[in-house]
């Protein structure tokens, strides 16, 4: 009897614990409401107070903000200077920093939480607008910029380079003609122009000059490989990722007059122009690129160039800058990096593709006016000048900083860096991709096509297949008929 009753007690307790854990572990997800994707926060009510008609940095005194930041030199400059903002406004700012490899996973998941999202503002790229803005996750900013009660009279939004500003305006309609229209979804914060970087010592020793056309680019890369068989003649990205397309490849693609989609959003990656550029690019990579090209990301490309394993690189200009630093560059590389705008198209055109690190406001934020205070401070001339001169916030987004003598003196140490910027910015410098919500999926598939052609598939056939697939996807998504 005693055994039975004890046994029963034990049984009861064990069952209770089992049940409680079951409820604890799976009860929560089972009762989860679906993630709210239609973040529609209050756009006017700032927790910090009403607009009084006159701008006041102290309007949100005592409030706190939460930022989501990517591990980046820009973020480091910001974090170091945040106390100045807190002193100016009387606000407190906390932030979470995540490594870039998984940063956008984190952003996407947090934005999906809508009004219960944790972060008021976040770092983003311009391409992400095409994914986040249609979902209603990004707060349009033009209303804040034009409101004198909310924006510091010295802000001078127009000083931000127009090509950058316009690249972050969109009317949510797919199509190149729609970029630069509609709402301002983010503020440019720092940016990268895709340029040609080369080892000046090797070029000088072999009487080479930076290539001025795609054919020359291929030829010079092959020559560099012949001169130093242990080095890659050129290093560019090649991994299975949308980011493989956007640096050097897209710049050459656009400069040569090719487009990704026509005005009716019909994919054009199999046009005669596109096939020719692709074939030449792959020929260059195959004969002069790194051995494991299909695994190459920003990191591998930059590391190889900085370690002296590549004689040239066609990627973001700031990647060369970061690699040309003490403790980063190999001894033979340091001080020997030079910049050039990149080869021109057959018509002498230079259409540089750009990447823009930006600040955006979470549409689900409950403190939008206060968040705007932070955003205008972080993109204001004072902080950005400090960031560019004292930290590593290159490239600056404001014209005034490019003209700043201290900044010019700092960058003069980088051979032809400023001249390259001047050439690029006086040509057609913008996002050369067509804005559309499936950008990441479709561009990653484009990268897959490049890899397949690299592996030996016929360029025309593979690109035809790519276009068929993209056409179907765009139709399924209702982007085209």
């Amino acid at each position, binding site marked *: 009897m*005693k*055994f039975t009753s*004890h*046994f029963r*007690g*034990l*049984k009861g*307790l*064990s*069952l209770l*614990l*089992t049940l*409680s*854990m*079951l409820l604890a*572990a*799976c009860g*929560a*997800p089972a009762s*989860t*409401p*679906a*993630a709210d994707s239609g973040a529609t926060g209050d756009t006017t009510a700032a927790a910090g107070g009403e607009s009084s008609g006159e701008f006041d940095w102290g309007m949100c005194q005592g409030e706190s903000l939460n930022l989501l930041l*990517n*591990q*980046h*030199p820009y973020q*480091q400059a910001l974090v170091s200077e945040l106390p100045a903002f807190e002193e100016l406004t009387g606000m407190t700012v*906390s*932030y*979470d*920093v*995540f*490594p*870039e*490899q*998984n940063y956008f*996973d*984190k952003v996407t*998941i*947090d934005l*999906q*939480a809508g009004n*219960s*999202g*944790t972060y008021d503002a976040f770092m983003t790229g311009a391409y992400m607008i095409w994914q986040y803005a249609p979902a209603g996750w990004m707060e349009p900013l033009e209303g804040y910029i034009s409101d004198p009660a909310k924006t510091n009279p010295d802000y001078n939004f127009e000083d931000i380079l127009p090509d950058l500003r316009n690249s972050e305006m969109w009317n949510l309609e797919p199509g190149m003609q729609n970029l630069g229209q509609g709402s301002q979804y983010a503020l440019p914060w720092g940016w990268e122009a895709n340029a040609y970087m080369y080892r000046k010592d090797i070029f000088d020793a072999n009487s080479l000059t930076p290539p001025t056309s795609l054919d020359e680019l291929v030829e010079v890369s092959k020559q560099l490989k012949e001169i130093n068989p242990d080095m890659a003649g050129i290093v560019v990205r090649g991994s299975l990722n949308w980011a493989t397309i956007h640096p050097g490849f897209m710049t050459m693609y656009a400069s040569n007059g090719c487009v990704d989609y026509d005005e009716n959003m019909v994919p054009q990656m199999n046009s005669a122009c596109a096939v020719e550029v692709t074939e030449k690019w792959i020929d260059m990579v195959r004969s002069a690129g790194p051995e494991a090209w299909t695994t190459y990301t*920003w*990191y591998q490309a*930059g*590391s190889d160039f900085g*370690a002296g394993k590549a004689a040239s690189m066609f990627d973001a200009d700031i990647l060369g*800058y*970061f*690699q040309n*630093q*003490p*403790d*980063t560059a190999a*001894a033979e590389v340091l001080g020997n990096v030079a910049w050039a705008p990149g080869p021109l198209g057959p018509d002498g055109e230079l259409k540089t593709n750009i990447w823009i690190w930006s600040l955006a406001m979470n549409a689900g934020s409950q403190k939008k006016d206060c968040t705007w205070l932070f955003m205008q401070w972080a993109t204001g001339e004072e902080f950005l000048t400090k960031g560019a001169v004292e930290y*590593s916030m290159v490239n600056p987004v404001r014209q005034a900083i490019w003209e700043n003598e201290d900044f010019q003196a700092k960058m003069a140490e980088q051979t032809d860096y400023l001249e390259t910027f001047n050439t690029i910015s006086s040509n057609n410098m913008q996002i050369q991709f067509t804005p559309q919500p499936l950008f990441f999926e479709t561009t990653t598939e484009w990268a897959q096509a490049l890899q397949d052609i690299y592996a030996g598939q016929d360029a025309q056939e593979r690109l035809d297949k790519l276009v068929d697939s993209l056409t179907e996807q765009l139709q399924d998504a209702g982007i085209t008929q």
Partner: protein
Amino acid sequence: METNSINKRLAGLLSDGFLAVYFLFALFPILWMVLVSLKSGEELFTTQFIFHPTLENYRAIFFGDTRVGAGVVAKQEFPQYFLNSLIASTGAVILSLLVGVPAAYALARFNFKGKEDLAFTFLSFRFAPEMVVIIPLSVIYRQLGLYDTYFGIIWVYQLVTLPLLIWVLRSYFEDISPDIEQAAMIDGYPWWRIFWNILLPLVRPGLAAAALLAFVFAWNNFIFPLVLGGSHVQTVTVASLGYISSAQGFFNRMAAASVISSIPQIVLALSIQRYLIRGLSFGAVKG
């Protein structure tokens, strides 16, 4: 007779040689990690075994980087990330032990309605991809205020640690004859003393093995702390990626952080080694 002994010795030498080669093969990734952690930035990308070893990377991850200049990632929070991992993983294992051991016992010993369904539900936590549940979980966590808290991370780790513990221990409890418990009852032991003094010592090898594996899985988890944690509870798995920034890949510091991060697992594994081998093989051929 002599030939036999030579053959035996030869076979022994061959088997020792094979084991030595396998040992090197198995440990090479760890050796490589240690070597990279001792390399300076200048020698990082060489593949030679001869280089100028430096402890600079260890100094940098613990005390920060005093250099200024382009792209230098100051990283002095590593001890905090390490502590976060330790708190989250240890807490998760303790919680799993507290609830998992009785649960395993109940599933092994008692017959009740829906028993197998319940057991299967626990198991299903392991084969449901984390990405499937992560978005609803993140919404709930934010609404409940569990985001970026130790408790939140410990709780969500139960999805990783609890099924493992329950299923490993269940087979151990099933191997113990109920007669032992009944004999103890007859001797006048209360149920909790039977559980504590008789059953638990009998399943100790399994307990050690399951707890260690649960700890390792919790320690290595990446997606939960990434999505459900912020800077306050960031674990080493997430933070280690921060050594690769846009400006530069500090693979040597990442290696140093990985070396330090693997110490708790290695120490734990060595300290319960005698249970571990028995625990992992015990019950493996159970019918």
